[in-house]
């Protein structure tokens, strides 16, 4: 499936109130990715450069004394994609690369990204991810699971598993710092995929992100936390994901499954 994201609002009130808020929340997250590196909370961050934002980023790199090292071209996608795809000749693309404070870390990141084994443990360390989460990600990605939310839900304390012949359902109470179930729509606090939705290390990291986010846009952070605390139904089936919250239904792509996998949060 061609990657896509789509938000269908439940009513006009939600759209009018939360549409502009979502835009600010997304900008906040992107800004925080940059600031977390600049302020030394992590050694590196990934950045996407397009023809539209090139000048802005180039100027900012100088102002913030950071450097950007390109790693790959990625064919253009709108919203969210689980992986980068090599563009065909003549197709529009953006440049995916690493942002870092020094040459050594940037080169190391590029080397690890380009290696055939894609050394996720080393990449995770540079990006500031908890080790437990990177280990889990490595195992899951290696098993071909490109969207390991179900797996993280099963590892969450108190996870209640139900279902029938056609579908599997798990009920959890995720920590907002660990909640990546809305990340497809730009709604997340931390930048990594956690090993579980109550991972202690992720919560610790999440509080660092929270501090930085609050320093950038406290109001938008409040909205973000509110969204991540709403009850949610994550419904993956045949490669299409539906994420249902009281304000909207979000639709995007995910890994293909013959069965339906549903995560419900309280």
């Amino acid at each position, binding site marked *: 499936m061609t990657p896509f994201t*789509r938000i269908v609002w*439940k*009513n006009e009130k939600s759209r009018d109130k939360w549409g502009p808020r979502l835009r600010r929340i997304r900008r906040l997250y992107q800004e925080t990715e940059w600031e977390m590196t600049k302020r030394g909370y992590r050694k590196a961050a990934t950045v996407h450069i397009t023809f539209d934002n090139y000048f802005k980023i180039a100027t900012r790199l100088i102002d913030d004394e950071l450097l950007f090292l390109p790693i790959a071209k990625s064919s253009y996608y709108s919203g969210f994609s689980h992986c980068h795809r090599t563009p065909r000749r003549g197709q529009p693309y953006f440049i995916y690369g690493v942002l870092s404070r020094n040459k050594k870390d940037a080169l190391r990141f590029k080397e690890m990204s380009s290696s055939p084994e894609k050394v996720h443990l080393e990449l995770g360390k540079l990006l500031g991810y908890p080790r437990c989460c990177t280990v889990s990600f490595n195992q899951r990605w290696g098993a071909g699971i490109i969207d390991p939310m179900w797996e993280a839900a099963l590892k969450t304390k108190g996870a209640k598993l139900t279902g029938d012949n056609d579908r599997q359902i798990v009920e959890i109470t995720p920590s907002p710092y660990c909640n990546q179930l809305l990340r497809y729509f730009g709604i997340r606090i931390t930048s990594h995929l956690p090993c579980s939705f109550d991972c202690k290390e992720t919560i610790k990291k999440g509080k660092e992100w929270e501090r930085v986010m609050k320093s950038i846009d406290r109001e938008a952070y409040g909205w973000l936390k509110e969204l991540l605390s709403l009850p949610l139904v994550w419904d993956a089936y*045949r*490669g*299409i994901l539906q994420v*249902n919250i009281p304000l909207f239904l979000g639709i995007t792509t995910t890994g293909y499954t013959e069965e339906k996998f549903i995560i419900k949060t309280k």
Partner: protein
Amino acid sequence: MVIAVKCWLGCLSSDCKYCFVKRGGWAEKKPRYDLNKVLSTIRRLSKENPDEVITLHGGEPTDLPKKDFVRLLKEIYKLKGRTAMQTNGFNIDSWYIRQFKKYKTSVGLSFDGPDECNLLRGKGDDKERLRMTKKLEKTINRLIEEKIPLSFIIIVHRKNGIENRGRLKYFLSKMAHKGIREGRLNLCCITENIPSKEFELSIPEAIEVYKDLYDFCTRTGLSYSPFKDITNSLLGKKEVVCVFGSCDIFCTPSIKSILHDGTIANCVKTYHEGFPFMRAELYQPQIREQLLLETDCKGCKWWDYCKGGCPNHGIHSDWRRKDKFCPVYKVLFNLIYTDLKSKSLLPSKKCQVPTKQYSGNHSDGIVHSDGPMKHLDSGRSV
């Protein structure tokens, strides 16, 4: 596209056993609409869509207070010079017929056939439902006598498809003699909200019933959906019902619904637990198309004519699957294709319904806006 005015999703005059609105819990007990907001949306949509039909819908429009019913008809008549309505018909009396004449109303009647054929409609016990049906049959005759344009949506289920099919066919013949030669024969579809298997035909039963009805319609010169739509689709014509078009469940191209507070929503079949009522801004059929082409419909030779069927009839009630009646449609496509081929009616090269431009619509009222052409199911001029 049709604009359906659904002030109230409730219904007092009937308790149809297969109603997906009532069984889904969306039918409000009491009307609570804001008529000014509804009228405002009607005016706005009429301006944006000058060629489209506006039809009173529901729920049941004749269960609205009469003064509001007339106000709606009057406004639509002012904008379009004619009106349309989809109704269960149980309330229709002289008063309503006078309004129909005054506001040039085309009446789409939900009616499953005479006597026991219609037992799943109406309310109360079987005796009461039969009594209501008998009264409705008289109403139908009266509407015809009064030259009110009329067409039928007939839901095909066990009562009229298996148990009393002869009576249904007799009724269709009788109506044909009175000038009503077109309409719809839609399969009763059970969803998660309507768990009873009592009504829905099994796939083998649906195939047998549809084959028989197709044969009957062909012999008697009747033009009922889905046979008419499959024929048109194979002939490359644009007048094809939305089921065989490229539907986007979040922005249904066949119909825009105006709800009680003036919100613009989608086809009523999309209403179920947690689903957004509000219509998405963009029509994006390619999502389901691409998914089905890679999964359920991969390699299907009828894809270009079918597009995976209705997303609301998806297997397991999921729009990410093809229409669960696919095996039935495949049989019909084969049958009608063979018929057309034997009569040398098929176009010389394979006609493909354009993927990007949606061209199928349907109206539940008499004026069926199937594609850019409008045609009247009744064959009578309006």
